[in-house]
């Protein structure tokens, strides 16, 4: 008496196969110290806020070569696939093309764009999206994202992951925050950074 197909197929699947996806710990992706040049002003801004942070030194803005990335985040996942979202600002004087990302814990990572055809949405790979000087590019659900496939770890809410954003200018190392499985935005979205 199920009315929901994904729930139904999951039920049938577990009945059939008795499969339980092993929940791996992502502890090994916790913070590293490589971000000494991160926006610490920002971290200080938030150090007194009560945002339920376990690590209040977690930075939300990353900068390299005139490219500023704010609020990188992803949904909790155990399916082997993840979408990374963030706000990218080009603070330089040249156009910069966002190409994708290097994700050490995944087989592939590519820039994808959302496309709606006949009522069903899907993400299609993109060759790269240019961002003009002083413009922003929003990577958000049902729009742009970086899709990583073949993840070697699972991620739970509160974890972090290290990835490197690839651009036509310089690579930008990021610490991605893991939000709830059904989150639609970064838990700090709406703040000005």
């Amino acid at each position: 008496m199920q009315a929901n197909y994904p729930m139904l197929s999951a039920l049938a699947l577990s009945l059939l196969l008795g499969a339980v996806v092993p929940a791996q710990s992502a502890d090994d992706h916790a913070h590293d110290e490589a971000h000494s040049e991160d926006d610490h002003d920002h971290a200080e801004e938030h150090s007194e806020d009560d945002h339920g942070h376990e690590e209040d030194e977690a930075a939300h803005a990353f900068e390299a070569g005139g490219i500023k990335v704010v609020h990188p985040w992803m949904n909790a996942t155990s399916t082997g696939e993840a979408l990374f979202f963030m706000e990218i600002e080009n603070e330089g004087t040249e156009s910069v093309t966002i190409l994708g990302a290097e994700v050490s814990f995944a087989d592939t990572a590519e820039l994808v764009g959302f496309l709606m055809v006949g009522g069903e949405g899907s993400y299609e790979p993109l060759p790269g999206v240019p961002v003009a000087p002083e413009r922003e590019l929003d990577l958000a659900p049902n729009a742009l994202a970086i899709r990583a496939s073949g993840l070697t770890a699972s991620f739970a809410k509160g974890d972090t992951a290290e990835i490197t954003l690839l651009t036509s200018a310089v690579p930008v190392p990021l610490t991605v925050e893991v939000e709830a499985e059904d989150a639609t935005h970064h838990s700090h979205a709406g703040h000005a950074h």
Partner: protein
Amino acid sequence: MMLRDFWDGLPVLFQDVIVLAVLLSPLLAVGIFLLRGFAPWPLVRAVIWRFRWANAMFVGLIAISVGMGISLIAQERGLRQGTAAAADKFDLIVSAPGSEMTMMLATVFLQPTDVPLLDGETYAEIAGHENVDFAAPLAFGDSYDGAPVVGTTEDFVRHLSDNRIDGRIWTATFEAVAGAAASVGLGESFTPAHGMGDEADDDAHGSAVYQVVGRLPRTGTPWDRAILVPVEAVWRVHGLADGHAPENAGQIGPPFDPDYFPGTPSVILRSEALWANYALRSEFTRANETMAFFPGTVLANLYRVMGDIRQVMSIMSIVTQILVAASVLLGLFILTRLFRRQVAMLSALGAPARFVLAVVWSYAAGLLVAGTIAGIALGVGATVAISRVVTARTDILVEATLGWSEIHLAAAFLAITSLLSLLPALASLRQPVVEGLRA
């Protein structure tokens, strides 16, 4: 993890068929176990015929319950696909900053609304961008016989209709191309009213007469009811500059002169490549100047909310079905009391318990199968009827189809109730034979 990958790697149709088979397997297992070596059909037929009115009511009750659940899921999917298809031709919309939802309703679904305008400089910058194939300005405000008269450009009309115009595109300012459901035919002429609906003023544009020179094929969108005219015509009818300098008087379509551009509520952008659409969105997202959005994204965000609603509704329909299953069960207990005598007779004649069980269960399962199949038919029928009403009222083509999730829902209902119907069958066995014979 590997099993999950294996499952995800299977074709979708195959997954659906497997889920159906798993759902129906309890029914088959019980059936095979009970009926092996027996032929209870003549008896079952006799029981069904003997109590035909009670049985018919039962089948009807099950059918309505299953039909409601099916119709809910199918209708939600039909609405989702219909509204998404209506937005298919609108890749990227640029407007003054504000609500994306309001602008989408105004532009894609032609709901009248008051919004700020983009000026000629901004339009020229958008239209002149290297990644833009065409940038169509829009002009709303007039109507004819309740249908909106929308000013735009030839490029957009060709894009909207996939270049399948019956007749021809306009070549003069006061020529029009009518949507498939518009109330003016090819060759007819009309005078637009100022405004829309009850507020429309029929006499405001007395001197303007449009000649319909083309007709669009059906697109399944609210644009079917619209009448499209050159944007210059709408501007001129309202006493505004027509987008072109005096030395270019009479020109139709782009390029427009920013100094003589009265403004547009939104610009429909078209770019061949998906990446270019996203680049344009980044380019024209500017605080306090312009807002750029994809109707597809706005709709997808809306469907996520609708998905939550669907889940709530699904739970309600599951509760309804549990109630129906409970009453079916209760009813079966009562029905088995009705033929208590016949069951006692069978036992007295020496029929094995499994045979008696097979007769009673086959009877119950027969009612359930008939009710479920009738329910599927009822659900599809209701969906078709509701879809027609929605399509007629909104011009959004909503198509009702029977999907796998509905079939799975019906199969799950059948599986659970047929297993539960073993209970009344077992209960009828436990009744003392002698009392039963006297009944």
